[in-house]
């Protein structure tokens, strides 16, 4: 019941805002819907934690600990982003970039986007999962090009085409998977249902599954932004409105990686070979390296953090490739914290860009003098994202490195070097922007930001701190259950 | 094979008949194409016998030899004619296994045809006139571009028999495979393209004009006159017929006689004439529909032929094994 409700809320939100999104109160309604969705995901997670996995709608929906974990992250970040959107849109409106029609489009698509991500996470049917993930692309494609500048349209076109091509490969993978499972499960609806597939995963034909897995990784990997399929990601993040950058980075990438993880369980079961793990490790390793090198000369602040997202998704992918309970735990923790911290950073960046009127790092100066709050937030976020203690990314990166030394010792020096470069570049850039020479002669004391502006940022960073220092025991149990549903046996 | 003729001499008679058939029927086929073309273009046809009349007229004329010619120039027309006449012994069309069966390999045929083409181009270049030179070069370019397609078609067809020997190809088709195979259909399309290219037909070359910018085949014959020209023209007509016969063997072998009984030979002959009748009309239709390609578009045309033949070849493995 709650499982159906969790779909109905954003769906009705999209409908409502599609009809009345141009009204003055619409942004508040958006927050309301997002909060209700978030509350439902929390309820759902508690329900799953106490009563076990839920199934609904003719077995098409299925939520276990793994998906409920991601559902909570999605609901939470979507809710705080809706707060941020309110502020962001108000300021955009003051700058005159906004018409009521565009607000309506933005709000309706935002709810639609949340809906598609929830469908991906709650879907038991791998075919529907594909449909929803493609739907997520379609919902965000217009959001990325929302500002209608030439660069934005170019970015959204690139996003559309590359993700469309990528996701087509994943559909071919789905067809191959159906082909393999149909032999044991029989034709019809059940052959694509995860719950059924899990019971027969050892009987699936290895050749077909290995080919299918490659197509899945290439397809969904495009959406995760794994190098060399990452080309769309920096553009889409840099040119879209900042709230969208935040949810793309913090949620969509996660959800796509979640889809890969689901398929990997099946591939591991069918193959008895390290191929799926090796493939993920390879993609992850290359992503971390290339992303950190690409960050070196970025002049655009949003682009800089987009590459940082590629790097972190690469690290998480690498962790899942390494496998085993510790690395898998580290991977999940890494994804969670990355969502929180990266969206917080994008919130801060959004305000910075709005106050300084440019995304170019050289023309952003003296944030510390103008808005000390923003400067503090950005610096804290920067420290968190580069994996310094006491934030949780430190723990997860440490765990990943420790496991990597066991499995792929020769790669560790390169990984450390990459992390080091990222750290240096990011901190250097942030300090450069906070202080530095005046680019604009007179510093206009910017309007005082209300406390409301900063609270989403601090909530996120606080959560990251909490996860990094004092890890609540019930939460740890949820993570353990999630690891179990990823097919990793604990204690090995 | 129980159908091997018991009296070798009978087989040789058939071979001789094949040669005569090609030599004497080729101009008629040419005339038939001309008639259909004329009708399709609302002109009054010149009649079926017009090519014959042309040949006889040329044979009666005196030969004018251009300045600076060598023996090559005199030597090539008869060579060309006899290569074509000889090739007619290698293509079985009146019966499945002619006595020259061991030699009757499709690759041998392709070799013979390229030898003839080479001789012709060499003779055209012998005089050093610009047109002959240009025609020779263009002819060799077209040949070089169609050759891979031709070979791929041969291979596709021979996939059924496991051999490029034409009698065994024919034999494997008569074993009850249906003639309707995707790979063969596509190879047949490629064959039509190759046929048009190799015989200097319309989208590649216009056989009925002497427009210097576009002509290929005719440019090579410009300096010839009288009986030598007759031999060249006659040889080309034979070549056209031979290609059609080859295509019939590969893609529409139904009805060809497998023994020596007069009835089956007669049925085979009638079927053959019927097919040639239809094919001639088809060629005329193609030539009326399509405009001539610019020279630099020819590689695209031949690339298409190569593409089709290779696709046919590949599709055989996924669809028909």
């Amino acid at each position, binding site marked *: 019941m709650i499982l159906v409700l969790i779909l109905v809320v954003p769906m009705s939100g999209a409908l409502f805002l599609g009809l009345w999104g141009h009204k003055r109160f619409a942004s508040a309604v958006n927050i309301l819907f997002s909060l209700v969705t978030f509350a439902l995901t929390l309820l759902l997670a508690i329900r799953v934690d106490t009563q076990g996995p839920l199934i609904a709608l003719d077995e098409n929906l299925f939520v276990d600990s793994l998906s409920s974990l991601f559902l909570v992250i999605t609901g939470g970040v979507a809710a705080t982003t809706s707060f941020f959107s309110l502020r962001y849109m108000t300021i955009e409106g003051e700058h005159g970039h906004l018409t009521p029609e565009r607000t309506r489009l933005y709000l309706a698509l935002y709810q639609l986007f949340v809906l598609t991500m929830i469908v991906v996470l709650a879907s038991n*049917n791998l075919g529907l999962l594909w449909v929803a993930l493609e739907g997520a692309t379609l919902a965000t494609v217009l959001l990325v090009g929302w500002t209608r500048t030439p660069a934005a349209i170019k970015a959204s076109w690139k996003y559309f085409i590359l993700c469309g091509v990528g996701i087509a490969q994943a559909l*071919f993978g789905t067809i191959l998977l159906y082909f393999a499972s149909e032999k044991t499960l029989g034709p019809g*609806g059940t052959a694509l249902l995860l719950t059924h597939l899990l019971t027969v995963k050892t009987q699936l034909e290895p050749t077909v599954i290995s080919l299918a897995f490659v197509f899945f990784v290439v397809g969904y990997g495009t959406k995760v932004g794994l190098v060399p399929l990452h080309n769309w990601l920096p553009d889409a993040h840099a040119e879209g409105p900042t709230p969208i950058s935040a949810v793309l980075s913090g949620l969509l990438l996660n959800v796509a990686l979640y889809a890969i993880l689901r398929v990997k369980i099946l591939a591991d079961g069918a193959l008895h070979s390290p191929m799926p793990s090796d493939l993920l490790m390879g993609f992850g390793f290359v992503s971390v390296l290339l992303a950190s090198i690409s960050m070196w000369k970025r002049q655009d602040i949003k682009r800089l953090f987009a590459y940082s997202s590629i790097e972190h998704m690469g690290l998480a992918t690498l962790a899942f490739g390494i496998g085993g309970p510790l690395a898998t735990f580290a991977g999940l923790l890494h994804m969670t914290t990355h969502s929180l911290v990266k969206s917080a950073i994008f919130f801060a960046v959004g305000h910075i860009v709005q106050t300084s009127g440019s995304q170019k790092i050289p023309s952003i100066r003296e944030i510390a003098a103008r808005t000390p709050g923003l400067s503090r937030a950005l610096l804290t976020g920067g420290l968190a994202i580069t994996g310094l203690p006491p934030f949780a990314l430190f723990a997860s990166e440490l765990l990943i490195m420790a496991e990597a030394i066991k499995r792929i010792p020769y790669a560790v020096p390169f990984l450390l070097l990459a992390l080091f470069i990222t750290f240096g570049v990011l901190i250097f850039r942030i300090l450069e922007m906070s202080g530095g020479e005046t680019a604009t002669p007179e510093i206009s004391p910017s309007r005082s930001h209300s406390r409301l502006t900063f609270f989403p940022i601090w909530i996120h960073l606080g959560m990251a701190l909490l996860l990094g220092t004092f890890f609540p025991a019930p939460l740890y149990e949820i993570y353990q259950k999630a690891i179990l549903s990823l097919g990793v046996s604990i204690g090995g | 094979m129980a159908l091997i003729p018991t009296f070798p001499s009978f087989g040789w008679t058939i071979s001789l008949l094949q040669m005569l058939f090609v030599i004497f029927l080729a101009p008629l086929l040419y005339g038939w194409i001309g008639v259909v073309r004329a009708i399709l273009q609302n002109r009054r046809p010149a009649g079926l016998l017009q090519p014959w009349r042309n040949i006889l007229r040329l044979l009666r004329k005196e030969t004018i030899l251009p300045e600076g010619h060598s023996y090559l120039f005199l030597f090539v027309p008869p060579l060309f004619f006899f290569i074509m006449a000889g090739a007619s012994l290698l293509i079985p069309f009146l019966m499945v296994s002619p006595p020259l069966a061991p030699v009757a390999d499709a690759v041998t045929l392709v070799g013979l045809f390229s030898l003839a083409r080479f001789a012709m181009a060499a003779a055209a270049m012998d005089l050093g006139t610009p047109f002959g030179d240009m025609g020779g070069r263009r002819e060799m370019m077209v040949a070089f571009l169609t050759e891979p397609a031709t070979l791929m078609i041969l291979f596709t067809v021979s996939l059924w028999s496991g051999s490029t020997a034409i009698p065994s190809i024919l034999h494997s088709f008569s074993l009850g495979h249906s003639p*309707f195979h995707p790979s063969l259909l596509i190879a047949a399309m490629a064959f039509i393209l190759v046929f048009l290219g190799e015989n200097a037909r319309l989208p590649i070359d216009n056989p009925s004009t002497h427009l210097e910018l576009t002509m290929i085949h005719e440019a090579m014959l410009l300096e010839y006159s009288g009986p030598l020209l007759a031999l060249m023209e006659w040889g080309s007509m034979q070549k056209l017929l031979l290609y059609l016969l080859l295509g019939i063997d590969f893609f529409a072998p139904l009805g060809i006689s497998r023994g020596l009984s007069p009835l089956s030979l007669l049925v085979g002959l009638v079927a053959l004439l019927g097919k040639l009748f239809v094919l001639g009309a088809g060629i005329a239709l193609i030539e009326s529909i399509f405009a001539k390609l610019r020279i630099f578009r020819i590689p695209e045309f031949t690339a298409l032929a190569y593409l089709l033949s290779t696709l046919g070849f590949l599709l055989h493995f996924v669809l028909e094994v």
Partner: protein
Amino acid sequence: MTPSLLHPPTSPLVGFLGSALLLSSFAMLAMRRMGSLVRIFALQGILLTLSTLSVALAAKEPHLFFSALFTLAFKVLLLPFLLFRLLERLHIRGEVEVLLNVPTTMVAGLFVVVFSFALSAPISEMANTVSRGLIGVGLAALLLSFLMMITRRKAVTQVLGFLGMENALFFSAINATYGMPMVVELGVAFDVLVGTFVFGIFFFQIRETFESFDLKHMDNTPTE
């Protein structure tokens, strides 16, 4: 019993229609005119319908008739109609600009075909549909559309490549498993339809912003 007796070869009609579909993919690669490109796309839809019908008849799978009917309505009538209207409304005419010349693209396409046939050979071995040989053809068509998207510069051609890909995927699903479950098939079709509309919106935005559909202009937009 040899494996080839266990699985009869693909029936000639099914095989021929599949081959024709592959040829139409090549034709899309070779086309130079925008209008003929859309026409070839419609033709491909017709071939897809016929091919689905032939598989339905050969395999006696009644639900494939619905798929065929659906394909006819959606890919032969609706999408080409929308595309033609789009071309008309936006006054798009003229030649498709190519990055690679046509013969080179063709040869690259042949390599793609060889690659996909080799890749799908072990899968066809395992299939027991009447059209199992065509799985490789589906994969080849998929990658050919992909090739078309890489080698063509105009926005409209990229869209046609995208739609061609979807055709190829549908074709693969039919031939490997007699189609996906109905829910999934409808969902995919819905996505494609929405995608086409989004493309339509895009075209207007692109024209407003760049006054051209050549992606060259977009490439010249500074992004950093």
